[in-house]
């Protein structure tokens, strides 16, 4: 008898194959037919009009495009045409920068809010109002004030990833068990030492949950932000190929965005497991 894991893998493979076949059939059934065109006129038209091909690419077209991109992931034809790998690196770089800044801001502030009831009550209304704002709504304001599109994109990443980290840090810090704090107090541990040796390890799992949520959001937002400001990055790639109505390239980009998102999430999940402790 094979284990659940192996059976799940088999089922996944089956679902994948089935969806590919359905996709293939759907695409090839669709575009056929239509009135025959004058050959001179047909020459001026796209494939889906001239031939019997659907506008939607099939899995084979996408596969071919994917192989093409993977073969030269880092080519660089000037500022407007770079390889998929380079574009992804640009996006990852932006996310890393914005995210690190957000982390640097959210951790100390979260500690402050979690440790002091006064700070919590005073800052709560601001957090509650700013948290639900879509990060892209900040874009025009950022472009106008920062006056630099690259920095604006990083700012948008910062602003979207700061809230989950801030709130989770505050929550984690506030809900450290009272007994542990009391023990620390009995032993006359100073506030700095208490924060680092008692509260930080105790709140670490919650903080990492916040970080994991943030990185997910940051990765979602970077694509949209880059579609807006353009220039470089995977979001720009999607936009550029959308303009060209090259759906196979867009699908390849979607696959890549999903893959990188998963890797980022798994990295933080691993960190989270490392700091989790049994109660």
């Amino acid at each position: 008898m094979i284990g659940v894991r192996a059976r799940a893998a088999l089922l996944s493979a089956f679902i994948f194959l089935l969806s590919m076949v359905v996709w293939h059939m759907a695409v090839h059934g669709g575009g056929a037919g239509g009135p025959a065109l004058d050959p001179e006129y047909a020459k001026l038209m796209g494939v889906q009009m001239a031939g019997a091909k659907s506008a939607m690419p099939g899995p084979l077209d996408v596969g071919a495009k994917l192989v093409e991109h993977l073969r030269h992931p880092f080519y660089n034809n000037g500022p407007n045409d770079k390889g998929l790998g380079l574009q992804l690196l640009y996006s990852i770089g932006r996310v890393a920068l914005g995210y690190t800044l957000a982390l640097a801001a959210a951790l100390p502030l979260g500690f402050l809010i979690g440790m002091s009831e006064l700070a919590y009550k005073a800052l709560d209304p601001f957090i509650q109002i700013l948290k639900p704002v879509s990060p892209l709504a900040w874009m025009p304001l950022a472009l106008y004030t920062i006056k630099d599109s690259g920095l604006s994109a990083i700012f948008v990443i910062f602003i979207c990833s700061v809230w989950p980290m801030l709130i989770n840090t505050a929550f984690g810090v506030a809900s450290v068990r009272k007994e542990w704090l009391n023990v620390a107090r009995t032993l006359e541990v100073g506030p700095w030492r208490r924060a680092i040796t008692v509260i930080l390890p105790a709140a670490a799992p919650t903080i990492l949950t916040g970080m994991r949520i943030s990185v997910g959001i940051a990765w979602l937002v970077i694509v949209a932000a880059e579609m807006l400001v353009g220039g470089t990055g995977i979001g720009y790639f999607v936009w550029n190929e959308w303009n060209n109505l090259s759906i196979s390239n867009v699908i390849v980009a979607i696959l890549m965005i999903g893959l990188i998102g998963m890797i980022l999430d798994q990295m933080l999940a691993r960190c989270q497991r490392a700091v989790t402790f049994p109660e």
Partner: protein
Amino acid sequence: MAMFDNPFDGSRRLRSGCACGKHDSQAAHDAAARVSRMDDEARYREITTSAVMRALFPDDVQRRGFLKAVGASTAAAAISTFFPIATATEVFAQTGKPEKTDLKIGFIPITCATPIIMAHPLGFYSKQGLNVEVVKTAGWAVIRDKTINKEYDAAHMLAAMPLAISLGLGSNPIPFAVAAIENINGQAITLAVKHKDKTDPKSWKGMKFAIPFDYSMHNYLLRYYLAEHGIDPDTDVQLRSVPPPEMVANLRADNIDGFLAPDNIAQRAVYDGVGFIHSLSKQMWDGHPCCAFAASKEFISEAPNTYAALLRAIVDATGYASKAENRKSIAEAIAPAAYINAPVTVLEQALVGTYADGLGNIKNDPVRLDFDPFPWESFAVWMLTQMKRWGQIKGDVDYAKVAQQVFLATDAAKVMKEMGLTPPATSTKTFSVMGKAFDPAKPEEYVGSFAIRRS
């Protein structure tokens, strides 16, 4: 082109036409042909020498007499002994070393930007000693902000944008300038295929149309067209700002019923079988401006030599693009992903002018899109009247003054002259839009003459 007559040629005939009909005489024709074969240095030297010769002997008959008496080469040698022709040539050719050679220019991927884009792969910038990076940009608002923020040194803008920016419409007032017009004509009203029976604009009530930007010729032309057919563009239809490259995707998704957009976008809608070309913009106003090569006044005053070199590159590229025989190779040069990112056949249909209309007909119009760099101040005045008409400008505006400050006709004329082209002698002209005459001297009366207006 009298500019390139050889004043040392004593046997030049004074009157009569040439083979191609563009020049006063066969000699002028030959001179122009000879000049086009020369490299820049030789050409500049020649222009300088002829200017000196003409200055010394302003009277044609006297000059001829002198030349006949001593011979052309002796005359040149004699003059160069007391006049430093070499230095003068240098001064003329290098209107000064560019203050800045690494430049960034933003563009929107449409055929209107052809001169700006093709100047990169075809080397028009490097010929002027400039290292220009042309950067594709997502939309007009972004290109405006990036140019205002100095991320771009200069940019491809809709001809009305520098007017709007200078007047502070939709942004802080910052003095901007149109250094040169890019293209004339080259836009089309495109409708979704499902509307193929609704060719009469009167039946367009309730439709949604896309325009590239609020401050665009497209907006003003579409509004004008609708209003002339009794449709109020503000209440009877919906007009939406959509970046041109996204229009076809929106038309396919049924978000809009049609658009007035650059020819390559219209042609792409036809190519993909989602739209048909209803009419070309040149049917409304033949020779209307569309996009511009724009820069801030600050850039122009801080780096005048760079600006002059850029303008030379653009004027040169525009001249090259206006020739029908170059269009096919230009389409190939600007089609790759780094530039417009579109199938070559789509660009070729827009640039060469043999195109499918989306209803099964092949049409041919070699100047459906054309290029002419001269920024007529009258164009600016017309746009200002439309801004006023549709309520974008509230209150009074000094049409002539704004037009003169933003549309740098004098600079363009100077550069065109340097390049050996003949710029128009004036900077204003009259024209007619959909059969209605426009006189740039009477803008207020013009605004007042429309039945449908907001002011």
